[in-house]
């Protein structure tokens, strides 16, 4: 699945030195002022209600910005999760007289569990399933709210909902909600630059590549989904306390669509956009109250807006503003110079880094790879060649875990990786590039390489702090000659340079074995020379390389050892020159007389 990178705005991180909390101090000061204003300004009841609604809804919409904006997964049940929090606080404080805080926590927990279970049952499958399953879930929750009268009071709703003792009056409760909004907003704003946030963006941009650079794609999606559900639950709990009354129609599918529209209108990828969208869609209906006299008219307009936004303004209002003001903002900062890249491939077992034994991959009746043996010596450059359709790329895909082997065994530095997921193989020390480049397109070169550097088990990044990661990534980019352009977006690089960034991403992870899938394909002759130089420099640091390529000159010069495949079988194996003169190899490439 390719994620909708086209929809997502672009953040260019500046290099940071000061500790996070100090750099973000202005945010907290601003937030404190707003909270103080909310607590002290005298609002009439009507304004207070609007502010309360906007504040709590915005938190729920932040949840959507995490799951949809950051991770590219859809959630059409946000109103149901919102309802979990609201009913937990409602029923708990009103019927059972339990402490507000306990109820709020319970509501968040219920939303978390429901979100996690829903995500785990569906997120291995494609996005269509998720959309339909969340709609179904939403309908079920509404059914229960209406029919389980003994628990939920049915359509009558839950009245007399309590608030915490500390915030009994409406004004102070609003201030409390605004403070929560500020906290959640800070978290969501900061999330994209954390390890989890980067993983989410990587999954959104390119799921396949995310797995191969060491990200547990499924777990990342479940985290994003559960996080969005928790924020929904939290928002619902706050909402229930604010309005003291909840009923099923406030948490229907239509409300989920309202949340979605808010998120899309403002700009799904950023909390600022979410806040803008929420504010607008709460204020506009208040101004146009007369439209409410016709049932359905509002939602019809929302439906139309969704279509129009997706068509004409896919990044929402905030994305639009971002693009429009781009030219006035500071130029891309030049990154600091970096030290020389160190490659210290792990050495656990003996002389053989990769040992493949009678590996097979069948697609139905087609034997794409049929009983192949490969042994790659430590520190060597080993080439896997063969005519088109000989099974080279299939072999590579089985090695990196994108395909499951039908039979056979793969040992990487003594570890059996045959049954591992792609990200586990990467953690075990495998790095690879793709024939058709798979970079995370909404990110900068540096961020792409940082995600590579973050490989679990990479010993060269210390504890894996941000500074260590970006230093390691800068070293890798400098190594391939693109250091000065580290903060540019992927789309501004030529094809050849994108290929180098892919190699840098793999190198930053300090792999034990590097798999290169046709690295010379599509390169011009001077780029090929550069690539050849690069391979020499990599090999000089003792990193073992398994390369697939059609370029015989490159293969003959770079590789000491060659394995030749044809029709999925190994037809020759040995020292380069001897193999290239082997009669079977000659006839496979040139035909027999």
């Amino acid at each position, binding site marked *: *699945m*390719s*994620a*909708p*990178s*086209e*929809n997502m705005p672009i953040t260019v991180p500046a290099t940071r030195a000061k500790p996070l909390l100090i750099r973000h101090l202005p945010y907290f000061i601003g937030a404190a002022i707003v909270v103080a204003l909310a607590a002290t300004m005298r609002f009439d009841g009507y304004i207070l209600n609007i502010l309360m609604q906007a504040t709590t809804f915005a938190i729920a919409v932040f949840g959507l910005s995490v799951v949809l904006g950051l991770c*590219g997964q*859809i959630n*059409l049940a946000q109103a149901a999760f919102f309802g979990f929090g609201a009913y937990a606080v409602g029923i708990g404080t009103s019927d059972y007289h339990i402490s507000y805080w306990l109820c709020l926590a319970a509501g968040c927990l219920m939303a978390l569990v429901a979100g996690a279970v829903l995500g785990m*049952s*569906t997120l*291995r*499958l*494609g*996005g*269509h*399933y998720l*959309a*339909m*399953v969340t*709609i*179904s*879930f939403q*309908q*079920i929750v509404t*059914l229960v709210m209406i*029919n389980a009268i003994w628990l939920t009071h049915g359509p009558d709703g839950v009245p007399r909902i309590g608030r915490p003792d500390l915030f009994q009056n409406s004004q102070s409760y609003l201030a409390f909600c605004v403070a929560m909004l500020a906290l959640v907003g800070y978290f969501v704003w900061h999330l994209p630059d954390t390890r989890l946030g980067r993983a989410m963006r990587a999954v959104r941009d390119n799921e*396949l590549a995310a797995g191969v650079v060491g990200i547990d794609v499924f777990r990342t999606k479940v985290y994003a989904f559960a996080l969005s559900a928790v924020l929904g639950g939290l928002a619902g709990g706050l909402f229930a306390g604010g309005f003291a009354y909840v009923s099923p129609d406030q948490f229907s*599918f*239509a409300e989920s*669509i309202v949340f*979605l529209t808010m998120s*899309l209108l403002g700009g799904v990828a950023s909390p600022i956009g979410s806040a803008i969208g929420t504010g607008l869609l709460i204020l506009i209906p208040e101004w146009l109250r007369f439209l409410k006299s*016709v*049932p*359905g*008219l*509002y*939602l*019809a307009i*929302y*439906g*139309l*807006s*969704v*279509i129009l936004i*997706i*068509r004409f303004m*896919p990044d929402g209002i905030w994305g639009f503003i971002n693009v429009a003001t781009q030219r006035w903002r500071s130029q891309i900062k030049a990154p600091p110079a970096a030290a020389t890249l160190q490659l210290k491939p792990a050495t656990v077992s003996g002389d053989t880094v990769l040992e493949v034994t009678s590996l097979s991959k069948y697609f139905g009746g087609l034997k794409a790879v049929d009983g192949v043996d490969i042994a790659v010596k430590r520190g060597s450059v080993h080439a896997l060649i063969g005519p088109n359709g000989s099974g080279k790329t299939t072999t590579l895909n089985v090695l990196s875990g994108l395909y499951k082997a039908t039979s056979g065994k793969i040992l990487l530095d003594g570890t059996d990786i045959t049954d591992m997921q792609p990200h586990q193989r990467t953690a075990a020390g495998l790095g690879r590039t793709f024939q058709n480049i798979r970079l995370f397109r909404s990110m900068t070169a540096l961020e792409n390489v940082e995600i590579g550097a973050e490989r679990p088990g990479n010993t060269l990044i210390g504890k894996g702090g941000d500074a260590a990661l970006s230093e390691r990534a800068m070293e890798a980019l400098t190594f391939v000659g693109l250091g000065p352009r580290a903060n540019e977006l992927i789309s501004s690089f030529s094809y050849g340079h994108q290929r180098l960034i892919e190699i840098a991403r793999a190198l930053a992870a300090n792999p034990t074995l590097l798999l290169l899938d046709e690295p010379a394909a599509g390169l011009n002759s001077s780029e090929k020379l550069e690539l050849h130089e690069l391979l020499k420099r990599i090999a000089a640091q003792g990193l073992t390389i398994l390369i697939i390529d059609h370029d015989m000159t490159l293969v003959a010069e770079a590789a000491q050892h060659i394995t030749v495949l044809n029709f999925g079988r190994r037809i020759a194996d040995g020292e380069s020159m001897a193999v290239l003169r082997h009669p079977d190899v000659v006839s496979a490439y040139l035909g027999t007389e």
Partner: protein
Amino acid sequence: MDLALQLLFTGIGIGAVYALVALGFVLIFRATNVVNFAQGEFSMVAAYLMVVFAVDLGWPYWLSFLLSLAGMALLGAIFNLGVYYPLRHRTFLPVIIATIGASILLANSVLAIYGPQPQVLEGWFETPGIQLGPVYLDSQYLLIIAVTMILVVFNYWFFEHTMLGKKLQATSQDKEMASLLGISVSTMIMITFIYSAVLGGLAGILVAPILFVSIQMGSTIALKAFAATIIGGFGDVAGAIIGGLALGIIETFGAAYISVPYKDGFAFLVLVLFLVFRPQGIFGERVAEKA
């Protein structure tokens, strides 16, 4: 036992409706690789068109029927031009969000025009039904089953034995190659949307006399139809039909023996069970999206 037979008949009847809508889902999915979340609203709109022509205007049933289907063909075309076509080069997420928007737009426009009061539509036949041994065969259910059977046969003949059907298949399998062979891909996709809208509309008109004609009928039917496609195996035509029938039967028995208010919940339960234990469905076609 008698009750079980009766329930089986009803289940097959209602399942046939799900099957028709599911078929519309699958055809659009195969042609465009996108799930149309407004498929259920096609059924709802068609039922309301019938109410307009046959009840409000009092025109003959057959004429109203033909006009409604013509209206659906038009709606399918507008839907394609307004919702799918402008986004055809984008990834699947914007497209499904747009179809969700369209579904909300359709349902609530009808609500704004007609109000929330459910409407009643008479069945096609004067005779309410016939008693066959222990089982009472409702004429509308008989009609639904007959029409579905005819459509399944027609569908098979159309896709396997006509040139247009083969062109549609070629388009759904490889758009680029199809266009290189001189097939107009955009025309084929247009035909698919029109055909799917008519199928969905037909299901809506057939089921309307059994249910009330209401705004919610679209989303309810869509949900069941989607569950049916997953049960049968996503993207598989035979699977959609078997899945629809299976779901109709499960749901009818569930409502009779377990709980009426949660009747609509059984589809979800079955859906989740399939997703967890057999995501490829009964016929097991394609689970993962194209890489």
